[in-house]
């Protein structure tokens, strides 16, 4: 079992393990956060959010895959289902975000978030 968790793909007999996926997800998560915090362009921040969501889906998929790939029972197909719904939510979010950004653009002439601070303190 430990191999399954800790395998890094060096042993051809064992598939790449859980931790590798989780690590990749964590990296994506961190990069997404950085993007959110560092990007001045609102769309850049949205890109960061997409990275975070992808990281979460990778986690779900990895846990699903290594948790037994159940196809039935209460926990059945959690990974793909969560993935599908998260992708769907991301789509909704993107749509709403785009609309808000356009509305913002009409008002401010820019979507650079640093220049938008009518309200503070």
């Amino acid at each position, binding site marked *: 079992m430990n191999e399954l968790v800790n395998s890094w793909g060096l042993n051809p007999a064992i598939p790449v393990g859980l931790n590798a*996926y989780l690590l*990749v997800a964590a990296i994506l998560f961190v990069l997404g956060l*950085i993007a959110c915090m560092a990007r001045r362009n609102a769309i850049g921040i949205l890109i960061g959010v*997409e990275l975070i969501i992808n990281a979460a889906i990778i986690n779900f998929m*990895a846990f699903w*895959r290594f948790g037994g790939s159940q196809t039935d029972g209460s926990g059945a*197909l959690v990974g793909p289902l969560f*993935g*599908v719904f998260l992708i769907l939510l991301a789509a909704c979010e993107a*749509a709403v975000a785009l609309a808000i950004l356009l509305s913002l653009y009409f008002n401010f002439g820019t979507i650079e978030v640093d220049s938008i601070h009518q309200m503070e303190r």
Partner: protein
Amino acid sequence: MSNELINAAGQNWVGANLAFWFITAVVVGSATMAAFARNIVQAAYALFFTLLGVAGYFALLGSSFLAITQVVIYVGGILVLLMFGVLLTNRPLQERTHGELGRYLIAAIAGAVLLGGVLVRVVFSTPWKMAPAPAVPVPETAAIGRMLVGNYLLPLELAGMLLLLCLLGAAYLVRRQER
């Protein structure tokens, strides 16, 4: 336990493992670029490769359905939407991530990396709930379909409602003229 896994499957994982590492290289590289690229258009392009890579992961993890969904919706829909956004709102001025924001960037990176460190520690120290998985991924598309009209009917319907509402809201917001 792992031996049983191999024996039962009788499969060689070299290709899959190599694919993983290749995809990882692509994903991490492009994600880094998506996060740090100075140009927002570049970042969007980088995201394209990240999303494709993640679709690859999904395939490796045994859900071709999700991989295809990822490509179709994410790459084909969301990303295009973002690109639209970029183009609609872009001005000649390109994005810069330097100048007075340097300090700030460092703080952001430091914070995120620290959090990442905590996550990594947790990832390696946690006894995750594990179970032996079937060596060969079972076809899951049909099962997903059944689930979606079974127990997951409610989320599905809610998602439908959500899409409707988002459509309404988004359409309202971008409509220029009011009545």
